[in-house]
Every structure is written in structure tokens, then in C-alpha cells.
């Protein structure tokens, strides 16, 4: 065996081998820890929550604390969450999409557009509890439609403020992906800018816009802090959007600190339902873009 051969087959020095193994081990450990946290959360929620998942939780109201043996559930909280997220989407999606159209079709690189983008990224970073404080000041304390007080509208307003930047930024990305040729082609056929924007650009970006909107919906469905002192909570069915309104997230928060086992059980079960809603929306958004 020549010296040259020996050098070619010489194994790595021990130190370098150990370094590789060591780093592999640390990387594996880190990843395992991250997964462990996730799996533990999911596992516990399903382990604790699923046994309580009966039909009656969807159709009943929360029973008074300490009363066992009566049907107890959170049908009203599901109603409230869906209602407030729907109103929030109704407020922020049109507004957000129009702002995004401005950014991608009109403003582009202008100073105004840059500022709008900057403001939107700041808005997306505002802590959600601060948004709740803001909504309390401008909606709860104001008299709207002859009503002053906690309401679904106030909660939805807070959620809309949180949704807006997500909708704007994701819609702009989606619009930017529409090839310029389509706009030119539309204009060449005599369309005005409104027709081009709505019939061509928006239409072809619709799937990715929907993805962004769905992600924003998934994000705000689980928000609690902005609802604490805007929508408050309620033990009864929703009869009016100008009234204190229950939500799944606030219910989980209220009952998580409860000493009553049946309320804690309800909090776990509500978590299964809320998590299911959020993950389903997330999944849906992924499916839509995958199709493209």
C-alpha cells in the first residue's frame, strides 16, 4: 500500500467525526423537542377534549357553574366565533383587497404605496391586546344604532383590524403574480382599468387571494385578547349583534382558570372544536393553492 493510497482512505480525524456526530445529535434533539411540544399539545387536547365531544355540546348553552348532570355545551360560543369572524371578514376583506389593488395596480413603487406597505407591516405587528383596547375606546364606548356597550360588532371590529394587514399583504403578493401580459391583453381589447382589474387580474388571482383570506380567518378565529373587553361573553344564544357575545376562545380562557372540573372539561372540548376549525381553514387554504 502506497502512502498516497493510505491518505486517500484515511478516515476523518476523530475530532471532526465527533463534531459531526455531536451536531447530528444536537440537531436531532432540538427537532425532537420542537415536535414533542407540538405533539404533546395536540395529544393532550384530543385526549382531554374528545371524551367530552358529544352532540349536546353543539346544541346546548353552558350550564351554570357547579351544576352537573344537565346538558352543557357551547353552541352559543361557536355561533359567536363564526358570527364575529364573518363580520370581521366582511369589513376587512373588501377594504383589504381594494388597498392591495392600489398597491399592485396603481401605487406600485410610489411613495404612498411604500408608506402603505410599511404601515401594514407595522399594523400586523401591533399586539392584539392593544387592538382590543383601541376597539373598546372607539366602539364599546360609542353609541351606535342606539346601543352603547359590549357587542359582537366591537369584537368583530377588533378582529377586522387584525385581519386587514394580513389580507392586504397576501393579496398584493397574489396580484403581483398575475402576468403583465394579461393586463396588456385586456387593455388592448378595449377594457378600461376597472374591467381589467376585476375581470382579469382579480379573477385570475382569486385562488391565491382566497388562500390569504382563509389564512387571515384562521388566524383571527383563535384570537382571545381583542375579544376580552369588546365582545365580553354571554351565557345565552345570540339574538342581536349589538349585545355581549360569547366566543370559543374567551370561553376557553374563562374556564381554564375555573376550579370546577366540568368547566375545565368544557374548555378542553371547546379547544378541540376551535383547533379543528382553525386547522381545517388552514388546510383548505393550502389545498386551494396546491390546485393551482
Amino acid at each position, binding site marked *: 500500500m502506497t502512502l498516497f493510497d493510505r491518505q486517500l482512505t484515511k478516515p476523518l480525524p476523530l475530532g471532526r467525526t465527533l463534531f459531526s456526530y455531536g451536531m447530528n445529535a444536537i440537531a436531532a434533539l432540538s427537532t425532537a423537542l420542537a415536535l414533542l411540544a407540538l405533539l404533546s399539545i395536540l395529544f393532550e387536547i384530543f385526549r382531554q377534549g374528545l371524551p367530552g365531544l358529544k352532540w349536546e355540546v353543539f346544541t346546548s348553552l353552558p350550564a351554570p357553574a357547579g351544576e352537573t348532570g344537565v346538558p352543557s355545551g357551547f353552541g352559543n360560543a361557536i355561533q359567536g366565533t363564526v358570527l364575529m369572524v364573518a363580520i370581521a371578514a366582511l369589513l376587512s376583506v373588501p377594504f383589504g383587497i381594494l388597498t392591495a389593488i392600489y398597491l399592485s395596480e396603481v401605487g406600485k413603487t410610489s411613495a404612498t404605496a411604500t408608506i402603505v406597505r410599511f404601515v401594514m407591516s407595522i399594523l400586523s405587528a401591533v399586539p392584539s391586546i392593544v387592538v382590543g383596547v383601541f376597539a373598546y375606546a372607539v366602539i364599546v364606548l360609542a353609541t351606535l344604532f342606539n346601543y*352603547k*356597550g359590549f357587542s359582537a360588532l366591537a369584537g368583530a371590529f377588533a378582529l377586522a383590524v387584525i385581519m386587514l394587514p394580513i389580507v392586504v399583504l397576501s393579496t398584493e403578493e397574489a396580484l403581483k403574480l398575475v402576468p403583465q401580459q394579461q393586463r396588456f391583453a385586456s387593455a388592448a381589447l378595449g377594457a378600461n382599468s376597472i374591467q381589467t382589474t376585476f375581470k382579469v387580474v382579480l379573477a385570475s388571482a382569486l385562488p391565491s387571494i382566497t388562500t390569504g383570506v382563509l389564512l387571515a380567518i384562521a388566524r383571527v378565529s383563535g384570537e382571545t385578547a381583542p375579544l376580552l373587553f369588546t365582545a365580553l*361573553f354571554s351565557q345565552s344564544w345570540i*339574538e342581536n349583534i349589538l349585545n355581549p357575545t360569547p366566543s370559543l376562545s374567551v370561553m376557553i380562557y374563562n374556564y381554564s*382558570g375555573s*376550579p370546577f372540573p366540568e368547566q375545565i372539561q368544557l374548555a378542553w372540548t371547546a379547544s378541540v372544536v376551535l383547533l379543528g376549525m382553525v386547522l381545517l381553514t388552514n388546510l383548505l387554504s393550502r389545498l386551494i393553492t396546491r*390546485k393551482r
Partner: protein
Amino acid sequence: MTLSASVVRRAITASAVTAAITLSPILTAIAQAIPVNGAGATFPALLYEKYIAEFKKKNPDITVNYQAIGSGGGIRQLIAGVVDFGGSDAAMTDEEMNKVSRGVILVPTAGGAVTPVYNLPGVANLKLSRQVLPEIFAGRITKWNDPKIAQDNPGVNLPDSPIKSVVRADGSGTTFIFTNHLSSISPYFKGRVGVGTAPRWTTNPLKGRGNPGVAALVQKTPGSVGYVEYSYAKKNNLAIAAVQNKKNEYLTPSIENTNKALSVINFPANFRVFEGDPSDGYPITGLTWMMVYKKYDDPQKADAVKKWVQYVLTEGQEVNASLDFTRIPADTANRALQQVQSEVK
């Protein structure tokens, strides 16, 4: 591309339909029942939830909603005018009542006891004397095996571990009743902490939200001591410490003990009392109030509020005992009811 766009459009339509179905009860039920919204003390929350359920059976056209956010919150939201009635177990002060331009009537609804609860595995029937209790919550006694505690509890094996106090994170009438008592019996406590719905604690306590939050924290934390409204302690099987009254008897709360304490109290014209150390009965006793406006914009709402108060002060009082609350003495209840009937508009 076009295919997926149409798929999306269909999906949007489908979800809109789903949402409409989910929300249809709202759309059909709008303005059918008169809402009466309240918020405030957690102390009587268990009782009010029961009232509401019973009241709804008799008055399906009125929906009462009460959210337990703490007495401080009840007073604040009443002054802000964002609720129809508030709940508090610290009677509103004159200054606070002056801030309500619509006028306010205090309606006493129930009496209850605040009890110290603790979590010491293996230790039952703990007794805390008039000297010990304030000093624990003022931070002068810091270990469970302190000779002052041991003295009252002969034969009890007290651990050599620190005492962790648990108090309220929110402004609380329960805290008011508790600190009002401790300040009445201990100048040291009065100087260090004082009376209030949210006093400045000197023991670095853990803080829980509402009576349930304190009960849950004590339940989970060995070595802790807190204070809750009696029914929260009883329903959750928390260990209750006996306390000493003015006659130096060691008592735990019961309806008779609480009633005895309340019977020595005189209700003034505005129904406010601040008795910190009654001469007889269970010493840490307080009343809880519902605050209603004198003026409502909507006459229907004023009627609904009157019906609600009437229920609470008559039939509702029968429920009190089942949740270990005392009744409001009949003549006081009558007086309050008359004032509400004649002055609320």
C-alpha cells in the same frame, strides 16, 4: 386556472350558505327578547347564574346576561354606561355614585361569607386566630410551622415550608370584604395593606382572576392560602380554615353563622354597609349588591330591569340558601324593591 377559480367561487358560495345556516337563529330571533346585560362581581356569580336560568323560565321575553368580571369591573362598566346593571360586593362610594349621571340605586341581593382556604396535604381543620390571619396576609408570618400558627393548632403536623398567598388579580369585592375585616382586627395589616378592592399586597402573592381563579390556584398549589366566597370553597372541596370572631369562637361559614353576623347590621337608607367586624356570628361576612340605573332610554328596558329586580328580591331569595348565601332581611328587601319600582324609569 379558470377551473380552479370556479372551484373557489363555488367554495365561497358554499361557505356563505353554511354561514347563513349557522347564523340563521340570529337572523330570525333579532329583537324578539329584551336583553338585560349585567357585569361585575364574581362573588355572587354562581347565584346570579341560577337566578337567570329560573327567571328565563318565567319570563321568556327577557334575556338577562351576567358576566363575572369582578366588582371593580362592574362599577367601571356601570359608570361607562355600557351595561344595564352592575354587580359589586364593595358598595359604591359617593364619589363613584356621583359619576353616574343617570342615577343609581344599590340593591342588596344576598349575603355571603368569605373564607380563607388553604392547600396543605395532610392538614385538616386548620385554625387561624385573629392575630395570625392578618399577619399571614401582611407578610409577617411566612412559614407554615410558625409558632403563632402552631399555638392554635396543637397536635397538627405543620410543614416547614413557605406560605404562598393567593389573591385576586382583578379589582374585587371579595377582596374588599376580606381586607375590610383584616384591617378592622389588625392595625398592622391596616398599615401595611389597608382596605380596598385592589390593595397593594406586600407578600408577592400569586394572583388569580375572579373567585374561580383564586380557588383554582389554591387547588393546584401546595403550601398556598387564599380567600374565596364560601360556595366556591364548598363546591370544590377546598380545605377551609376556621377563623376567630369577636367572641373568640372559632367558626367556619354556615348560613346560621352568616345570618347571625348580618342580623347585627343595620341597613341605612341607601343600603350601604361597611361592617368589618360584626359582634357575633361568622366574622368575614359581606353583602353583594346589584346596581341599577334610575333612568333607562327605553321604557321596555326599564320594565325588564324592574321585573328582574322584583324576581331577585322575592322568589330569587328562596334560591339563596341552596348556594349558601343568606337572604336579605325581608323588610330591607321590601324597601329596596319599592325604591326600584318607584324611581326606575
